[in-house]
Structure formats: structure tokens, C-alpha cells
């Protein structure tokens, strides 16, 4: 949740690697294909999710992303997924696997599957944003016929996100200096702080608008770089989609297991 980590991700996204150079559209579609393949696995599929680890792993290696950053984010499991999934072992006690004298209930399998799904889908989203800078992602979205008004909105939000986070940090620091511990953290004080922040934001928006109008803003944000979907992008997208379908439809893990045990 920390803005510091988001800021780091953002810096990494401007790197230069084979993955960074790909067309944003290819990466968006590949991420969607990956997530769909993972999410469409049946509820009790746990081992079958194993081959999918290849994608985040290869992204980290080829895209030259610090793996620790992704790993840390994945470890901070969404409380909602954890909370809801944690009920499964209690509600579904039917024996599903029988291994070395232990009975493993279906609930534990589906819960573990939810956790693995979480790790895979979150790392896919992080891999996308770590290899694609937000402006070029937005350019890809425009090319994919997402309404321009919305894309401009995304670009504005991105432009002011870190700036206003710093402003929020300043307000928080001011409160921390004036109120010790939890005493000053009443809802009333917080509401005034949010109100102050809001008014400052409005003034800022007014100044921005005037500055932009003075420079000929007409509702569009122009980007110099042209997108071109090359053969490399096509090969990448097809390769990801086909291997996702392969891992989804064929029992690769079980073949591996049989092969490994025979061997």
C-alpha cells in the first residue's frame, strides 16, 4: 500500500529490456490471457497451477525487475481473499487427498488454491506495470479504443498521484507534531484535514487548468511516440496465449510428476 513501493515500481517501468520494448497492447492482452487461464482453473486445482509460475519468473528475469519487490507485495495477501478463503477448510471437510496416512480435506486444497491464484494474478499485474510505463500503457489503452476522456483521466491521476501523496504526508506530519500518540486522531480533526487537502487540491486544479489553457490544451494529451505492433509483439502475444492454453487444458504437472517418478 505504500506509495514508496508504487514509486519504485514506476521507476522500474521506465527501464529498457526486451519486455519493456514490447508494444503495450501485446502486454495488456498477454496479462489478461494469463489471468483468465489461472482463474478459470477448477476450484480444487492446486498442483495444476504450478507451471504458471514460469510467467512471473521469466518476467522478473528478462524484464530485469527486482524480484524482491514483487515477492514482498505478493506476501502482503489481500485481507479479503485471505479472510474469505480461510473459511473453506472449516466448511469443506470432505477428504480430497490421501497422502502418507494423512487425510487432506477439499477445503484446504481450495484454500491453498485461492492463495496460489492470488500470488499468480497479483504478480501478473505487477509484472505488467513494472515493464510498461503508465503513459505508454495509456497509449495502448487509447489504441484499444478505450474512451479518450477516461485515458486522459488516468494520465492526470498518474501525474498528480505522487505529488498529492506528498501533500498528504505533509499534513500527516503536521498533525504528528501537534498531537502526541492517538489523542489528536479524532474523526473531526481528520475531517478538517481532508477538507483542507480538498481545498488545496481544488486550487491546484484551477492553476493547472489555467496553465494548460495558456498552452493550448484542447482536451487531448498528445504523445510523441507512435505505437507499432511489430512481428515480435505478435510472436510474444501468441506464445504467451498458447502456453497459457497449454498449461490450462493439459495436465502438464501430472505428466511431469509421472515422468519424474519413473525417472
Amino acid at each position, binding site marked *: 500500500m505504500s506509495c514508496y513501493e508504487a514509486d519504485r515500481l514506476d521507476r522500474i517501468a521506465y527501464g529498457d529490456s526486451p519486455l519493456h520494448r514490447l508494444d503495450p497492447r501485446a502486454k495488456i492482452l498477454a*496479462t489478461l490471457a494469463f*489471468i483468465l487461464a489461472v*482463474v478459470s482453473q*477448477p476450484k480444487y486445482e492446486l*498442483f495444476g497451477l*504450478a*507451471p504458471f*509460475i*514460469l510467467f512471473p*519468473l*521469466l518476467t522478473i*528475469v*528478462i524484464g530485469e525487475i527486482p524480484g524482491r519487490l514483487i515477492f514482498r*507485495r505478493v506476501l502482503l495477501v*489481500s485481507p479479503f481473499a485471505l479472510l*474469505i*478463503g480461510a473459511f473453506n477448510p472449516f*466448511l469443506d471437510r470432505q477428504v*480430497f*487427498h*490421501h497422502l502418507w496416512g494423512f487425510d487432506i480435506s477439499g477445503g484446504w486444497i*481450495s484454500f491453498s488454491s*485461492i492463495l496460489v491464484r*492470488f500470488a499468480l*494474478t497479483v504478480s*501478473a499485474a505487477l509484472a*505488467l*506495470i513494472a515493464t510498461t510505463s503508465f503513459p505508454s*500503457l495509456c497509449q495502448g489503452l487509447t489504441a484499444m479504443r478505450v*474512451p*479518450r*476522456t*477516461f485515458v486522459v*483521466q488516468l494520465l*492526470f*491521476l*498518474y*501525474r*498528480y498521484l505522487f*505529488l498529492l*501523496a506528498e*501533500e*498528504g*504526508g505533509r499534513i500527516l506530519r503536521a498533525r504528528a507534531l501537534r498531537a502526541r500518540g492517538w489523542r489528536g486522531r*479524532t474523526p473531526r480533526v481528520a*475531517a478538517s*484535514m481532508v*477538507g483542507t487537502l*480538498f481545498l488545496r*487540491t*481544488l486550487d491546484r*486544479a484551477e492553476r493547472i487548468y489555467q496553465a*494548460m489553457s495558456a498552452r493550448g490544451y*484542447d482536451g487531448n494529451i498528445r504523445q510523441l511516440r507512435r505505437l507499432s505492433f511489430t512481428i515480435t509483439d505478435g510472436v510474444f502475444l501468441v506464445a504467451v496465449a498458447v502456453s497459457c492454453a497449454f498449461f490450462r*487444458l493439459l495436465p502438464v*504437472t*501430472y*505428466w511431469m*510428476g*509421472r515422468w519424474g517418478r519413473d525417472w
Partner: protein
Amino acid sequence: MHMSDALLSPGIGLAFGAVSGGTLVYSAHKVKTTLDDHLVPLMGVLGAFVFAAQMINFTIPGTGSSGHLGGGLLLAVLLGPHAALLTLSSVLVVQSLFFADGGVLALGTNIFNLGLLPAVIGWPLFRVTAGKKPSPARITLASTLAALCVLELGALGLVGETFLSGRSELPFGPFLVLMLGIHLPIALAEGLITAAVIGYVYKLRPEIAHRTFRGATEGRRRRSLTPVLTSLVAAALLTGGVAAWFASSKPDGLEWSLGRLTGSEKPGAAEYPLAKRLAGLQERSAALADYRVTRSEETATSGAEVWPRVDPEITLSGLAGAVFTLGLAGLLGLFLARRRRDHPKRGQG
């Protein structure tokens, strides 16, 4: 609370994506045609404001736990439905990418729960309750009422999406009661803080608040409410229809729980061509995979509760396979990483 990809089935994710995406396109068109471009930088900066406002935490009286403003209702009240939907959606997109709050596929559900509901339910409710010249008490009443409705409906959406996806074992009724209960204090806090912020803005800069409240009675805005309500009804119908359609094509979703309740198997699967085709695809892929436990196999032999076929052979294959696959993937990664280190690229930095 954000819906996560891990709890979502692809059908539900895509169905809600279609509904939210359609409404988003409509709102974008509306903002472009009816509102001045003055609003666009304001929307962008206010989206960033939501992140900053969420940093400001406070102690919830009586409990000692920490809370912060969600901001959905505040934006809806201050911006109107279309601009608020665009702004909240952009916030959710950035949250899902940079902060891993809610998944990419889950964006449709999250925009529905946290963007669409404040915009199309919270905004009109607040306007109607607050009236033209609101007193502080009226503002508090209006925002508390709107927050209650919006957040509890959001919780209902969350429960419905989770239940229809069928990844969680939680039964609908108790799950709903649990989530509604959790969201009750959250909604009250959100309503009170939203009221306090609006009251603060009203006191310090009455002209901003006046503009906001005057907008409520302007004919232009009022007329624009009809398509919003129409699209809401359409969205609800579409959601119901599409969700049911997709849910019945997923054997591990709604149908499974329905089958469990009624004792019958595959209710009405034959009525849906897509469901039949998908089931066929699944059977074919399962025929390739004689190591996978499939539901079609089980329903073919008997309809009763033999679904999890306990077979240590399969388990062992799966476990060994997972370990093997992970090991191989790890080795491949190490190999590539080492090769990269040995052959550094030109122009590092």
C-alpha cells in the same frame, strides 16, 4: 473492500467487466458532450486526492481501531455521477496495478461495487435528502443515509460476486449477514466523515459548495438522471442474465451449489448452447487428461456425493509434478539470470 482475482470465476469477472465497461464508455461520452473541459483536470487531480485522503487515518471512537475515508461518496456528491464514475474507476485501475488492491480481471466487479454504486445510487440519494439549501444536520443525514446504502449495496455486490464465482465455500446467507455487519460501522464512519468534510468546505468556501448544491436543481443535471437510472436497470438486468448464463456454464459455480441444494445435477445445462459447448470442451480436455478428476466423469457414473475421488496415485503425481515443475522453473530462472550477469547488456543504467 476490493474483490480479488483469486476469488473470481472468469465468467463473473467478464460479465461485470462488460457491465462496468459499458457504463464507463457511456459516462465518458456524457462527460465529453455535456460538461466543459474545465472538469477534466479537476477530475484527475481529485482522483489523486482520494489516495492522499486515504492516508489520513483517525481513531474510530469506542473501538480504538484505525479507519480512513473511502472517498467514493464524497467524489460522487461533489462531481456528479458521470465524472465521479470516471474518477473512481481511474482510482481503481491505479490501485489494481500499482498497489495490488483488487485484481485486473476483478476491475469490472470493483468498478461496479465501488464506483458505479456511489455514482448512481449515492449521488441521487444525497441530492434528494439534502435538498437545495442544506443545514449541517441535513448534510449529515443525507451523507450517512447515502453512505449506508452505497456501502451495504457494495457489500451485497461483493458477496454476490464471490458466491456466484464459487471459489469460496461460504453459504450465501451467513456470508451476507457477516459482510453487511462488517460494513455497518464502516458505512457510518464514512457517512459522518463525508458530512464533516462537506460541512468544512461549506463553511470555508461556500461558493464551491453552492455550485455543488445548485447543480442539483439545474434542469440539465436533472434530465441526465433518467439515462443513468435506465442504464442502472439495464445493468442490473444484464448482470442477472449474463451472470446466470455464465454461472450455469461453470460446473463448479452456482450450478454446483444449486445441485447440492436440490439434489439434482446440472440444472438446465442443456438449455444453454454455450454451456453445452463448454462442457463438451471440458470433457474433451479431460479425456486427454486421465489423471485429472473431472466432474463429468463423476456425474456419468453416479449423481451422488462421490465427487472427490480419493486416489493417492493422482495426489502423488500432482505433488511430485508441482515440485518438479517449480524446481525446473527455478533452474531456468537461475540459468537465465546467470547468463544475463555473464553477458551484461550494453549501456547499463
